[in-house]
């Protein structure tokens, strides 16, 4: 195969339909960018699950008037229980410190909260998080210095269903955009084939192989897909630098939200590129088979 010939055909094709090519690249870029965002959110969710679910499953908040005996009794009960994998004690001061970090973006909230407003607690990790009711039964609310037992997993489930929803919505928009991108690619290829019908007709008549005739069009689409993917990765990098690293700096530092690290983007970039190139090439090939006589 004559590489120069094919490449010059590709270049000519892209230049001739510049507006369509730009539209094709931009839609592809948006679609792939959203897909990448979806994948990053998915990665973040699993990181967060690790952070949260592993640390805390049950919180036992102690009453304000808890006595030292009651406190040690609870601790003894925890350390003896076969259901408990691990536990930590958090004093009022520690609770306040954590609260200040978590809400560092809302100083007025921190200022209006007296340091002793937050209860001391035991943070308990269960061997099996689903056995929560059994554990809760052992520490009835309002007795023996226990104010309240709370299943943090319940709260986390709601948080994660929210995050999952955000991820799904992003991916859904990415899919719709991908559909638009595929139709645009198909349209552009049909236009390109029409523009070059003299060349392709002659190629057909002199016995050029199907691949020889079709390859320039497929490469054209694949190249547009690749450029779209590069733009998408660029978009993700900009989002990280300008939005995630700046606006979300506080919660990330506090360990509430895991950071989006370069490794995650580096892992996703080849996936996006492969998806862009692959989908565009397949769309072009199918278009040529269905709509264009080559």
């Amino acid at each position: 195969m004559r590489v120069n010939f094919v490449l010059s055909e590709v270049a000519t094709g892209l230049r001739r339909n510049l507006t369509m090519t730009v539209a094709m690249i931009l839609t592809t870029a948006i679609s792939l960018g959203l897909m990448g965002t979806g994948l990053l959110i998915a990665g973040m969710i699993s990181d967060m699950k690790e952070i949260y679910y592993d640390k805390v499953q049950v919180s036992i908040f102690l009453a304000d008037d808890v006595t030292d005996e009651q406190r040690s009794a609870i601790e003894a009960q925890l350390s003896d229980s076969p259901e408990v994998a691990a536990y930590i004690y958090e004093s009022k001061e520690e609770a306040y410190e954590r609260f200040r970090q978590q809400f560092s973006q809302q100083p007025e909230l921190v200022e209006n909260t007296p340091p002793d407003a937050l209860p001391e607690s035991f943070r308990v990790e269960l061997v099996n998080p689903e056995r929560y009711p059994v554990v809760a039964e052992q520490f009835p609310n309002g007795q023996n210095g226990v104010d309240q037992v709370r299943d943090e997993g319940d709260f986390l489930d709601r948080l994660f269903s929210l995050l999952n929803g955000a991820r799904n919505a992003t991916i859904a928009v990415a899919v719709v955009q991908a559909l638009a991108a595929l139709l645009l690619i198909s349209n552009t290829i049909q236009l390109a084939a029409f523009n070059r019908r003299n060349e392709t007709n002659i190629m057909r008549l002199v016995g050029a192989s199907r691949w020889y005739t079709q390859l320039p069009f497929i490469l054209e689409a694949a190249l547009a897909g690749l450029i779209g993917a590069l733009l998408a990765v660029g978009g993700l990098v900009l989002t990280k630098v300008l939005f995630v690293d700046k606006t979300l700096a506080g919660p990330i530092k506090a360990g509430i939200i895991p950071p989006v690290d370069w490794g995650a983007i580096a892992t996703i970039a080849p996936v996006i590129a492969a998806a862009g190139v692959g989908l565009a090439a397949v769309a072009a090939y199918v278009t040529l088979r269905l709509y264009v006589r080559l």
Partner: protein
Amino acid sequence: MRPVANGSSRASGEVPWRLVIELQHVTKLYPASGRPALDDVSTEIDKGEFVFLIGSSGSGKSTFLRLLLKEDDPTRGTVVVNGKTLNTMSKWQVPKLRRTMGCVFQDFRLLRNRTVAENVAFALEVINKPHRTIKRVVPEVLEMVGLEGKAARLPHELSGGEQQRVAIARAFVNRPLVLLADEPTGNLDPETSEGIMLLLERINRTGTTVIMATHDYHIVDSMRRRVIELNGGQITRDQTRGVYGVGR
């Protein structure tokens, strides 16, 4: 066998390998039309023959040529080109078939943004001929068609006759077994047409079979070659040394 009209009869019992084209009871129906474009057509064309395909518009000439190129498949019957049955040929083999056929059209079909030499070279480039070969054979064929010294011109800088010579050079440069010409003189004045016919005759003398669809009775009458006349999709005449119209 072949119907014989008021010309000399053709020798029967040809050796099969001499046949380059064979149509057996070929019928072609197009979905949009009730009348067949070709209706039970059978004929044979030998290697090295020069055949005129005549008949009014819509008589089936173009369909005849399209079937030989496997641009279309017959509805019924068998088309054999150079020993290969086109009906059963797979799509992937079609390019190989077409490399053995050259095509020339009324409207030349040159690439407007390529020079004469590039137009001819294009036909070789896209079938992966080596650069060395292309560099050697393109000037040769341009000289043969009488365009030496015009290799760097663009098509619009040439006369109609010269453009058709470029098209013929492109069709012939790969030394096809068969040259199909669909009204090659349709856009040319009689004098220019004569030059084109001399060129086609010269190509025929190299052993290439030439099949030419035409309306130009001057040419048919003066050449005295085999004439196949189609009428309503049927062969109504097949003469070895024919003229355009009976009794003209």
